[in-house]
């Protein structure tokens, strides 16, 4: 554990919402701990409703966690208030999924970026102009775009503008919530490459929240898998995809259809049952047991412990060690063009 060197650490975070049913609570994030080293690209994958977005939103302060700590450079953010908190937390920025809603349609691109600069105290007009030029350049947009309104831009361009706005405050962590899933297929690679470039050039750490496993595998060095509010497995991306050791991770990877019809003709979908249960009333013990093909009696009574399978590989499953031992690189688990 390189705990001392961690840039961002989330410890035992719990975020709950009031349920539509009166008096009930939905625990969207339940006792989650994750960490990000400086300049690290980390993935967070899971199905919709598993709490991955809530976790990201809690980290940047858009949701108020019930308990747990968020540490930036070892400083507990919950110990700060008001202006001090805003200035410290600014180092963590958030990229929204929908580039159509995340920009104010009444502001030009230039005004949007200028506002971000004013917020961090860049008041000089000339300095603002120079910085906007640099920012647009960094995200690969022409200067002329500063005069335009968001409605005149394509989805990919808007997402670049949203990224430029985050960069304006010189963040050290970007939390990207499904940043390309609203974009067209042929545009996704362009935006993903932008993240890779920013990571390389500026050393920004990224937490990549996504449901597209193939995308996360290629973009990140480490991946967390989340299910119903809990982290069920985490490992380096290469290892996680090669040796998934939680039944849920295995099911996820096994469910991705290959783009090769010859492979698809013989592929059996993994034996996983039904849908993700309601987080209002999660199953006792292991949360995955209701859909798990390997569920046993013990799974219902005790929540599984987080087992270390390798120095950087953990899974919360009673048979994780067995799955780890039997797992081996599966060549056809990811979409593979001929």
């Amino acid at each position, binding site marked *: 554990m390189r705990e001392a060197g961690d840039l961002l650490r989330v410890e035992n975070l719990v975020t709950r919402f009031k349920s539509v049913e009166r008096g009930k609570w939905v625990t969207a994030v339940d006792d989650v701990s994750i960490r990000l080293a400086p300049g690290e690209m980390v993935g967070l994958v899971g199905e919709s409703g598993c709490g991955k977005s809530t976790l990201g939103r809690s980290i940047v302060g858009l949701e108020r966690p019930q308990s747990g700590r968020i540490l930036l450079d070892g400083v507990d953010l919950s110990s700060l208030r008001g202006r001090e908190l805003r200035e410290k937390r600014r180092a963590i920025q958030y990229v929204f999924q929908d580039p159509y809603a995340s920009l104010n349609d009444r502001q030009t691109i230039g005004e949007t970026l200028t506002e971000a600069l004013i917020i961090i105290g860049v008041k000089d007009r000339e300095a603002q102009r120079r910085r906007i030029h640099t920012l647009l350049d960094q995200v690969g947009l022409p200067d002329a775009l500063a005069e335009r309104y968001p409605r005149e831009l394509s989805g*990919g361009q808007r997402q670049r503008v949203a990224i430029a706005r985050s960069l304006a405050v010189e963040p050290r962590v970007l939390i990207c919530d499904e940043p390309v899933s609203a974009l067209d297929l*042929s545009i996704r*690679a362009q935006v993903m490459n932008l993240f890779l470039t920013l990571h390389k050039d500026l050393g920004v750490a990224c937490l990549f929240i996504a449901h597209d496993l193939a995308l996360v595998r290629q*973009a990140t060095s480490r991946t967390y898998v989340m299910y119903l509010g809990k982290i069920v497995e985490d490992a380096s991306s290469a290892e996680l995809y090669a040796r998934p050791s939680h039944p849920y991770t295995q099911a996820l990877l096994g469910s*991705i*259809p290959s*783009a*090769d019809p010859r492979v*698809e003709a013989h592929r059996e979908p993994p034996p996983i049952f039904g849908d993700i249960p309601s987080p209002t009333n999660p199953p006792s013990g292991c949360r995955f047991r209701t859909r798990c093909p390997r569920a046993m009696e013990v799974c219902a009574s005790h929540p599984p412990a987080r087992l270390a399978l390798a120095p950087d590989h953990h899974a919360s499953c009673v048979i994780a060690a067995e799955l780890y031992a039997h797992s081996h690189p599966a060549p056809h688990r990811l979409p*593979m063009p001929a």
Partner: protein
Amino acid sequence: MTSTNILQVSHLCVDLYTTRAALRPVDDVSYEVAAGETLAIVGESGSGKTVLNFAPLGLMPTGVVTDLSGSILFDGQQLVGLSEPALRRIRGGKIGTIFQDPMSALNPALRIGRQIAEVAELHLGMTSSQAEARALDLLKLVRMSDPEARLRQYPHELSGGLRQRAMIAIAIAAEPKLLIADEPTTALDVTVQAQIIGLLKDLQRRLNTAIVLITHDMGVVASIAARVAVMYAGRLAEYGSVEEVLLTPRHPYTSGLIAALPSVDDAPGSPFRGLPGTPPVLGAPLPGCAFAPRCPQVIDICARRYPPLAGGAGTAAVACHVVNARQSKEQAHA
């Protein structure tokens, strides 16, 4: 061959008028679907793939008017120029539809059972009790757990996957010959997606329904479709069997899309492959090839004349000047 085709679309053009503009989202598109076969229509947003399928059925939002030209033969009946009441009898009857977002397609105020029964009453002329019994059978057919209880539930009480199953049950309630599914799994998670695709394949086998699947996911295409039509800016770029199109793509757009899929051989942190530029915004039909500004193989003629869809035996039909010129040269050599 023609006799077994349940759907035969030839030279279909759709002109679409809104308060803001006139556009042509579908321009000279031809394809066919055989009974019990699945055709996947692949394209990005704005490629016209949704208009292509829903404008002929009269399913366009208020304030949008469409003019169709060309021909759509469905089960021996010409759909172009058909009146709204006649279309209404076909919609939900011989043609079932599945939408991306089941929550907005289902009536939130009606129980699932009632919504399925309604279709059976309307199109099969069943009595209320017969239709209720059929609704239960259909829920069993789409493999809903605890079907008796589901009949009495409202859409909001179901999870995304169960809603999509209910939607499928409604779509097949009148035993349609053709099922049009618009991104049926896009809003679903990958584990649920696998189940829904399995279900669609199973239903197709049992009911011999033809399926037109609109999607942008090549994995979904590979797992269910027999044939693929790739759309770009309102025109077909490539059209052929799933093996031809996915394994040996010939149109630069198709090959670019397929090459862009992340593969297991890509090292973590390595750059993503993609296409340069952005897809065009729909408007008046372009004189040349719409893909020309993004195409790595572009030649002079591409900007001036749009390439017709042409294909040889054993390969997919491709609308590309470069590919087709190469092909005719090879044929001349042979």
